[in-house]
């Protein structure tokens, strides 16, 4: 990871529309953001799509970045993209199911879960057994490497609550992995 000054220079380049600077941001943050999406969806293709959407959104929104933690800003967008995706899927599933007869679609096609791992991955399987909010918190903290304060702010919840949820969640995950 580059120093703060290097990152500032790269972001300034992005703001002036330099594709090379955006490419550097993709190299710097792409792997972690991909890990974040993968651990939330368990699906490589979907993670590719979400990652692509994230960086296209970054191009759109970079002018609105006014300083502060860039990682926090980027992962906030990533989190919004993931939750938008979930809402879209739920709505799409509901609509398709509601009009199944009309559309002559089989329900199973629309009901494919996002959380179906595309290969055997024990951690992924056990993660999917945690509640969505705890899973989100654990994965966000690990991949974003944000401080607790930043994470609590991002999630609009008290520091103590985030800390206690994380502790309970990780403990439960370890028990599931050992069980």
């Amino acid at each position, binding site marked *: 990871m580059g120093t703060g000054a290097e990152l500032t220079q790269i972001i300034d380049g992005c703001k002036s*529309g330099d*594709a090379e600077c*955006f*490419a550097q941001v*993709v*190299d710097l943050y*792409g*792997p972690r953001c*991909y*890990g974040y999406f*993968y*651990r939330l969806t368990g699906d*490589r293709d979907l*993670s*590719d*799509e979400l*990652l*692509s*959407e994230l*960086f*296209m959104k970054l*191009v759109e929104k970079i002018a609105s970045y006014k300083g502060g933690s860039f990682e926090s800003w980027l992962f906030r967008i990533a989190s919004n993209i993931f939750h*938008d*995706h979930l*809402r*879209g899927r739920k*709505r*799409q599933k509901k*609509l*398709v199911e509601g*009009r199944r007869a*009309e*559309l002559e679609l089989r329900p199973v096609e629309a009901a494919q879960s996002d959380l179906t791992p595309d290969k055997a*991955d*024990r*951690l992924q399987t056990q993660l999917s057994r945690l509640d969505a909010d705890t899973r989100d918190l*654990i994965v966000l903290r*690990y991949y974003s*490497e944000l*401080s*607790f*304060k930043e994470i609590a702010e991002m999630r609009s919840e008290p*520091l*103590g609550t985030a*800390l*206690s949820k*994380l*502790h309970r*969640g*990780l*403990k439960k*995950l*370890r028990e599931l*992995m050992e069980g």
Partner: protein
Amino acid sequence: MRDRNYDELRELLTRFTDSSDAGSTERDIRAGDSLFDMHPAPQAAPETLATIKRRISVRLGMPRRHTHPLYRYVGAAAAVIAMALIGFFGRSAPEQPRVSYASLIPAAIWDSDDLVSDDAELAYFRSELRHIETQMQALEAGDGELVAAGSLDEVELELIRIDTQFWKE
């Protein structure tokens, strides 16, 4: 996980728990984190990152094309001609029902190279339009049962949703 996060964690734990619990909580959290270290997520394929970079370059190139002075002059001239024609021919024409036009295909589909996924999106999009068309026809025909069931509101909500959420997908 970076060391500074653990420094912060230790400080927070002493603030939120008593000293005897702080140690065991920190151990639990570290042990949980190590699960992620031991089971790394798959890496993004280099082709994926390359495709994203290519898409960014294309996107960055797009606004420049649109802001070329020639386009601005041609656009302005076309607008003036269109306004003049509307003013000339439209004066005596009978009032037409107002129709709202929207971009018919979500922008994401134009940008995408994934034909399989786009086909599914388009099929879904067509089904949405067919459903709304059916509802509109029923309303125009004065289908009392449909109107009584609050379908007018439903159609309106559907249009609002499509105008907002659907296009982001």
